[in-house]
């Protein structure tokens, strides 16, 4: 039996013969004495053999499951759908492959861990470490290195270099501020106020239903009805712009309610016999809002639950939106189709820095 002295940091000699006879006291243990507890497999050879069989059967089962996964791959058509309780209708091939291969891999890991825990040597070990503080001599050396570097670079001697470097360091963040300039300066043509105030809606522009692109007549829309709508010619505008900006700005919802239930709107006579047109784009951060409760006349935004009362000028009654939903004034043309009488009176969509600036 080797004698292990406190100064011996290596732990290759663990004293297997002394299992359980004394706490494994190897070297200097700064935390606490850990009493060694014997495992069943250390004392009972039967238990040890049982553990051995367990581990071996896990590895063997893993082989079986790998074979099963190969069989599943070959035999099960990948289009087969089966019903499995809890999971529902699922692809048979995917489930079979996932389960068999997953179990096979798991069994290898579980077997290895069981082996390590039950059969491999089980003793407490102390690993030595150096002190975290370096000694005085090294400290002095490092300080001398720094002093010599300072001296050799001439940072103290070349006054003009030192000052110009400090100046350069002070100025270099300026471009970052320039990059953020559009917080207060807007380049021409990029003013969000102009961009969001000009939509495809103009006087006389017909309202078409989204998806079908058919013009809407007032009699098409019953009380309680909802139509997600766009200006006529939206598809051509999208084609021309190669983007969906025009749609994003011009999207509206048309709703019809009993005219007696309209408590207020954003302009005198902006409805047509109880049909109201409001922007579909939330005034908070611009999500499309079309959750419309026809009995309460509430329009909900799905993103942050802002709620607008379309019977009351599109007022915000709940949620983070800060402004009323912009209303589009409408009427009918001589052929009886719903049209806009003008563009929105204010910028549509989410708020922006310049919004309330003149």
């Amino acid at each position, binding site marked *: 039996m080797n004698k292990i002295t406190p100064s011996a940091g290596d732990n290759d000699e663990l004293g297997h013969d002394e299992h359980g006879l004394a706490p494994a006291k190897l070297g200097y243990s700064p935390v606490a004495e850990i009493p060694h507890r014997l495992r069943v497999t250390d004392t009972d050879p039967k238990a040890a053999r049982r553990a051995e069989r367990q581990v071996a059967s896990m590895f063997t089962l893993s082989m079986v499951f790998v074979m099963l996964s190969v069989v599943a791959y070959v035999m099960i058509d990948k289009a087969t759908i089966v019903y499995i309780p809890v*999971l529902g209708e699922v*692809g048979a091939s*995917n489930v079979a492959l996932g389960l068999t291969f997953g179990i096979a891999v798991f069994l290898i890991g579980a077997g290895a861990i069981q082996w390590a825990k039950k059969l491999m040597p089980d003793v407490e070990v102390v690993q030595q470490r150096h002190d975290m503080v370096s000694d005085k001599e090294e400290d002095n050396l490092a300080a001398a290195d720094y002093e010599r570097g300072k001296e050799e670079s001439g940072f103290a001697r070349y006054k003009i270099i030192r000052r110009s470097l400090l100046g350069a360091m002070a100025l270099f963040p300026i471009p970052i501020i320039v990059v953020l300039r559009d917080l207060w300066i807007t380049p021409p043509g990029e003013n969000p106020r102009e961009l969001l105030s000009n939509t495809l809606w103009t006087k006389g522009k017909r309202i078409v239903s989204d998806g079908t692109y058919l013009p809407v007549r007032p009699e*098409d829309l019953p009380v309680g009805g909802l*139509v997600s709508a766009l200006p006529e010619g939206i598809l051509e505008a999208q084609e021309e712009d190669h983007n969906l900006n025009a749609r994003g700005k011009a999207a509206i919802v048309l709703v019809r309610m009993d005219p007696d239930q309209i408590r207020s709107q954003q302009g005198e006579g902006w409805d047509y016999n109880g049909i109201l047109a409001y922007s579909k784009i939330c005034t908070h951060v611009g999500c499309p809002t079309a959750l419309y*409760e026809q009995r309460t006349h509430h329009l*909900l935004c799905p993103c942050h639950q802002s709620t607008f009362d379309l019977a009351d000028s599109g007022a915000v009654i709940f949620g983070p939106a800060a402004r009323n939903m912009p209303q589009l004034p409408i009427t009918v043309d001589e052929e009886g189709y719903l049209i806009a009488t003008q563009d929105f009176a204010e910028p549509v969509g989410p708020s922006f820095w310049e919004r309330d600036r003149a």
Partner: protein
Amino acid sequence: MKFLSARRRNPFVAVLLLVAALGAVGVTFSAVSNIQPAQASLGTQTQVEDGKKLYLEGCSSCHALTAQGTMNGPTLLGVGAAAVSFQVSTGRMPLAAPGAQATVKEPIYDVDEVAAMSAYIASLAPGPAIPTSEDLDYSSADVAQGGILFRINCAQCHQAAGQGGALTQGKLAPNLMESTPQEIYEAMVTGPQSMPVFSNDTLPIKDKQAVTAYNLNLQEAPSPGGLSIGRLGPVVEGLFAWIAVFAALIAAAVWIGVKAR
């Protein structure tokens, strides 16, 4: 009789009885499912009278003897046969208790009784009719166009995969995974509860069939990847991975770390 009693314990009898019972169920079902739409759209005089009796018994306490509505229930004049059919056949009406909105439950009235009540309400004032089997035939509908229309008009409340969602103050848009073509059609033309009306003028019957076809397509869509987890999308899938799978991983790590006994 003697012949029957002598052989009733023969093992083939059970099989024969089963076949006979299945056949009877099949014949009855096909008879009922063929006749029902035609019957409902006609609304015979006897149906109207039967419907009136049922109405006075079961509905008039809230909707008034004249169907003009009371403090407790809206007027039924002009709601049409489709609204009655939808509300009663899905068990929403009669209400079990006042609440945020009528909930789906086991229907109280059978198919004939619903048809009679629908005919009675339709006889009081014109309104959306129960769809004919021709209206509901989505076999030649454009599923892709239905998907576009579903996402424009339905998905904001019923969720992109038809799983339903919450509205305000306890109201909700129901899950559409059990909805029949007739229920989908009737809900669109009548706008039950909070739902807006999608009339046949703003959403023509052809487009309604497309929406129906898309919705049934969603209902039948399997989950080839395994668990659908409510088909609520990547957020739920991520949550599932982080909560359930991570918990399993932590449990495994704890097991690895525990000292063997």
